[in-house]
């Protein structure tokens, strides 16, 4: 059997996103992040060797760079006149982002995993669920609006528009965070600033010591343009590499208040509930733009230099690969093949005696087999032991216990599945084995051991008026009542 050593190594996306800081504990490096790199729905079309969009990120590691915590149009803590915003309510402690995807590479309906083989000539399909993700706070838990996905040029353009908009516009005085005793029913759309129908700014609750504030928030993520599929060939191996850089930012459309100092009316939110990380744009109010005491709205919006810088950054980087090996259908792996090589059991037993069925199984195939279920056509039985899986060539045993009764054809069935699909038509298989008849001899009555000697069973003994096989149990006074009882081992 020849396996073509042609592998497709698919480079995984580089996740890049930011985390928020805790006032008490510096920064947090949040690790769990997931994303997918298919920005173009058309990329979700069938691909074969021309895997232009095979790319999965299910996990990424990263550490927050210290320098992104500070700055963002405010002075560092510890300096005088510090007006760096502190954390927005739900993000008052550690905050993280999860980017989920359900991107799957599919071969004939089976989802492939890293390391799988697929059959030469098969058409691989990528299947992706809607992108989803969420910012959340550790220890909260507070929910946030859903992440909305854009292409990176779109996001950059939107950020530019926002900054420009805020330079020349200000909100009316009645447009500001509100406080109430109850949480908003749901995230409420308000798209004044974003000015895009497909981007939603959500009214979101901000718990504070004084009640529930509502602020406006939008969580935006984008994917870089896919890098061209990078194919390099070394001998008979082909390597395909795709990298992208998801970038996420938070548009926090917050306002300051005319009633600074009044804890019930003051949305001092501009100071107290703003994220302290850079990917942030926030709005300001017309009459009292307190942010930074600058006196002009928009002074603290991120400037375009920062936007450009942000888009160049790779704060978090992770690269994952998924290797799929192509196999020839004619020469490819045969798959798993579990065979019952031998069985051990006593076909003749006294009625009611435990019947142990021991079958030796071997995976005579060349692929890992996972044993799913083992069943016996007896009314009651127990699987004492079965291996979870068997590699090709591996041998093990299955042990089943049942009770001896007359059975015409005792049959064991092993359902198992292949670890990968390769060139197999299916991953599911069944092996069955018939043990033949089981003769259960009624326990012969006796008055002495001599009565049992005539039986065909060795070591027969008379116990409590019935003959038993002494090699299978013991006759003793177990309960101390002065009379013997029989007990099987």
């Amino acid at each position, binding site marked *: 059997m020849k396996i073509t050593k042609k592998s497709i190594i698919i480079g995984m996306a580089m996740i890049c996103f930011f985390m928020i800081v805790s006032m008490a504990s510096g920064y947090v490096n949040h*690790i769990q992040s997931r994303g997918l790199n298919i920005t173009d729905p058309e990329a979700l079309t069938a691909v074969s060797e021309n895997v232009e969009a095979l790319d999965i990120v299910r996990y990424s590691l990263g550490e927050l760079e210290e320098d992104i915590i500070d700055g963002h149009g405010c002075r560092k803590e510890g300096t005088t006149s510090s007006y760096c915003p502190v954390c927005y309510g739900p993000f008052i402690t550690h905050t993280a982002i*999860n980017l*989920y995807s359900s991107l*799957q590479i599919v071969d004939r309906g089976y*989802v492939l995993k890293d390391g799988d083989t697929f059959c030469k000539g098969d058409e691989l399909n990528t299947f992706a669920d809607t992108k989803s993700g969420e910012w959340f706070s550790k220890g909260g838990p507070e929910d946030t609006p*859903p992440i909305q996905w854009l292409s990176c040029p779109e996001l950059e353009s939107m950020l530019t528009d926002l900054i420009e908009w805020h330079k020349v516009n200000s909100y009316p005085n009645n447009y500001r965070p509100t406080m109430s005793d109850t949480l908003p029913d749901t995230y409420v759309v308000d798209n004044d600033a974003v000015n895009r129908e497909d981007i939603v700014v959500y009214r979101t609750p901000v718990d*504070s010591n004084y009640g529930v504030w509502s602020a406006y928030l939008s969580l935006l993520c984008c994917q870089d343009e896919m890098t061209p599929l990078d194919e390099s060939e070394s001998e008979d191996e082909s390597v395909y590499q795709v990298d992208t850089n998801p970038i996420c930012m938070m548009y926090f459309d917050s306002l300051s208040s005319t009633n600074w100092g009044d804890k019930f009316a003051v949305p001092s939110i501009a100071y107290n509930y703003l994220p302290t990380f850079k990917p942030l744009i926030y709005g300001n109010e017309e009459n009292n733009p307190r942010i930074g005491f600058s006196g002009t709205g928009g002074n603290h919006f991120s400037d375009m230099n920062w936007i450009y810088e942000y888009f160049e950054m790779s704060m978090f980087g992770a690269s994952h690969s998924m290797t799929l090996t192509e196999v020839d259908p004619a020469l490819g792996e045969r798959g798993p093949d579990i065979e019952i090589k031998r069985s051990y059991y006593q076909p003749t037993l006294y009625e009611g005696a435990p019947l142990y069925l021991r079958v030796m199984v071997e995976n005579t195939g060349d692929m890992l087999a996972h044993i799913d279920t083992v069943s016996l056509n007896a009314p009651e039985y127990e699987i004492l032991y079965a291996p979870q899986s068997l590699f090709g060539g591996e041998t093990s045993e299955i042990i089943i216990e049942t009770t001896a009764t007359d059975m015409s054809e005792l049959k064991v069935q092993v359902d198992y599945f292949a670890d990968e699909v390769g060139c197999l038509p299916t991953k599911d298989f069944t092996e069955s084995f018939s043990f033949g008849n089981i003769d259960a001899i009624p326990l012969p009555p006796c008055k002495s051991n001599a009565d049992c000697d005539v039986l065909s069973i060795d070591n027969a003994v008379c116990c409590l008026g019935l003959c038993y096989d002494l090699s299978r149990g013991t006759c003793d006074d177990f309960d101390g009542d002065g*009379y013997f009882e029989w007990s099987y*081992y």
Partner: protein
Amino acid sequence: MKKIIISIMVALILCMPSHAFAASENADCFKYYKFQSGLEFNDLHPEKVSYAPGDEVRVFYNLLSHMDAPIVEGKVRVQIFYDGPEDIEHMVDEFISEDDISLYRDDKIPFYFKWKVPSGAKGGKYTVKTYFIVGEKFNLVGISMLPYGPPGVPGEMTTFNVKNADAVSRIYLDKESTTINDNKYTFGTNSPSFDASTPLSIKTKLVNEGTAKKQVTLKMNVYDWDDVTERPIAEYSLEKIIVLEANGVEDIMYDLPALKTGAYEIKFVATSADEKSILKMRLAVGGSKGGIGYLGIDRFPLETGEKTTVFACVSNTADHSSTFEGHGTVEIRDKSGNTIYTDVMDTRIISADPMGVNWEFVPKESANYLTLKMRLYDKNDNMADEITLIYDYSKFKNTEKTLNVDTDKSLYKQGDTLRYTVTFKDDENNNLRGNILAYIMNPDGDIIHRVKDQNIDGTFYESIKIYGAEGSYKIVARETNHDLSAETSIALAAGDAGVEPKVPDGEGSFNSVRALVVIFSITFLIAAFLLVQARRNKKEGGEDS
């Protein structure tokens, strides 16, 4: 006298369980407790893209630990949602797929679970959300008590499709119709909060989508904090049988008295044949209620002289605006229940934001099994929360373990007692705990004896009297939790097939020893009687003479 005092002092010092360097210290809660990042559901995926009703869905993943601190008592919780275009995140099942998982950093262990698509399942997208919970309530990855999105905080998600060309038959609890005290409950956003004097009235609708009349069992429960304990507050538990007409709708009401301060999970579970619908709602009754959010030790097994840190996260769990004034204790006990270490958490004001607390100590003895317990008290010394975790080195998968089986001798005669010993040890010859299956096979390979589900703590002994055909007998031991096996062989010599088994004959056989005692007693009594009689006769004879 001085010597006595010094001796007493030395004795007292020696009796102290361990030296604590300092009382509890405030710390970053998330330094050790890496919520959402400490563990990865690596490569979570269904086996297929699409399934039909009645199919069994297999979902695969690897658990990959990134926690520096060891993880114990881990369980994987799974939620399955139907995500229709108009009915998103309708939970159709929830279950624990794995339990009692222990992991060290970088441990990577593959798992899969199965879920059967209901026979009348609605076609469309189904979402699988997975969570990892430590002990009874610590959310390490994902928050299963907040299952709704968008997308909530699952540990990981994946999806599959169901294609159903036949008639749909399902029941569902309608999220859109769900209210608390006549206010719409908004799933996936924030939990409502009530005061401790407000009774609660929850309303929803149970819908039958299908042409068949159905009998539905509806369970309504309230859980203190989280339903993962599977222990609802008994006094509020209700179960109803509801008959739903074809395409019928039933109004559901669940009235609760005012609850005490705390956070609660309200869970409705409706089942009819293989159809299920689950509705989970979270609410808080504001005020001061302390809770333990995580607990652990930074290293395990304990090693003599190696500094060890106990870490915990505590917070006020009822609302964001209140604080909890509390204090607590931590205690570590060994396998025998002896206290290895104990310390206190001084009284402090605890806010809703998790507060980390650390304690450091130096164990005087190594331990590969221990019980870690923390208790949190309010300012009136009422216990607010209590958590116990068991650290058992035996349960870590990727550690050196040795299983061995041995016999007292190698050659036996018919009827001899065969004594065999199974040992289960770590690489330093410390006892490990496990589950043993042991069996003996005769020369034909037939099993003639077995011991199953035998808990072992280092060593297990068993003995049987052995009879049978001459030849080699094999004794096999398997430790089923880790799929380890060991075997040895003995020889049974030939002999009379029935080397006089010491068993009595006949029905109603009496214990032979007792029978002998009776016989001896009767003989003795007769002899005594005859002796007395003889003496009496002799005496009478003498008198006569």
